[in-house]
């Protein structure tokens, strides 16, 4: 997969966070096509139409619901997707559970812009490696 074809979907009902992540992605991956979803009610429907080999950056809690529970069904329907679970606070149990369900990564949201830049570069690298494999 070349840099020019990477698609990223941000799924976060905290609109401010979604906007900030998209802003940082402009610096980190200017070549990426970025879509933002902030309405958690139609996540499953809309993700069925996500671009092929897209990287999903998904908040752990969507409208109070644990989005970890969505991962197995999403990956069953769309095994080409990579899902990175992001959370303001993540327990070890939730991290392990997310990875066990097939998430690419499960991480706490950084508190600094530089932290976000490092994280997003890392996730893109992991996504690229998985897509090539």
């Amino acid at each position, binding site marked *: 997969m070349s840099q020019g074809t990477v698609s990223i979907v941000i799924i976060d009902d905290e609109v401010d966070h979604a906007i900030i992540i998209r802003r940082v992605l402009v610096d980190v991956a200017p070549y990426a096509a970025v879509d933002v979803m902030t309405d958690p009610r139609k996540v499953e429907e809309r993700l069925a139409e996500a671009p092929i080999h897209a990287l999903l950056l998904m908040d752990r809690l969507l409208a109070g619901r644990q989005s970890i529970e969505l991962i197995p069904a999403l990956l069953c329907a769309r095994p080409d997707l990579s899902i990175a679970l992001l959370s303001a606070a993540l*327990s070890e149990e939730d991290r392990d559970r997310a990875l066990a369900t097939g998430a690419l990564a499960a991480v706490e949201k950084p508190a600094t812009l530089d932290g976000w830049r490092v994280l997003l570069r890392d996730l893109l690298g992991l996504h690229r490696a998985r897509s090539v494999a």
Partner: protein
Amino acid sequence: MTSSPPSVTPALETTEEILEAFLFSVSHDLRFPLLTLSLSGELIRESMRDTPEAAGSGSTGVALDALKQGAEDLERMLKALATVSRARRRQQDVKNVPLRMLLGGHVVLSDVADVDKLLVSVDPTPVRELIDCLCGEDPAELQLTLTDGHALLRIPARAALPELDGSPLIELARSLTVHAGTVVEELASLQIQLARHAVALEIDQQTVSVWLPRAAGSAR
């Protein structure tokens, strides 16, 4: 509708679970607006880079510095709450282990005969983490005495502990502002983990005492 009212006082276990869930929710739910504030402040600073107003003593620069400092303080305190929450959830692996195995290369000062045969019933991980936290990697001199049912270990802190006596968890609860992000937070987390398998911990100035339950049938 049922004729009997719901229980006014939930069972203790349920209350504990609710408090635990509440503690985790607080550390999560307060962090997301904090992230919005701190990241927005950084974005403003970056967008105003190279303008005199955002630098040094300009009022925007002062305000952004204050916002950053406040956000960092809140982040530190929320992390302490998350640390306490995680300590309560951490999986335990309690087993009978030779005390000597827990102590690694540290020197044991003791009148106890057959220290090598002494078994304690603990989860080894937090005990080792406590010793590492207090002693670092270099060998230290630990004092061992036996009490009824316990091996009492007195561990000298290599790095200076803040002035506190008794329980690090209580000290942390008294002042998150002072102790969050310090060795007291680390000790409080370990105290919670150790208490879950009946290991008591107490600080007396620069020495930490730990009561490790002896395994049944262990050497006396």
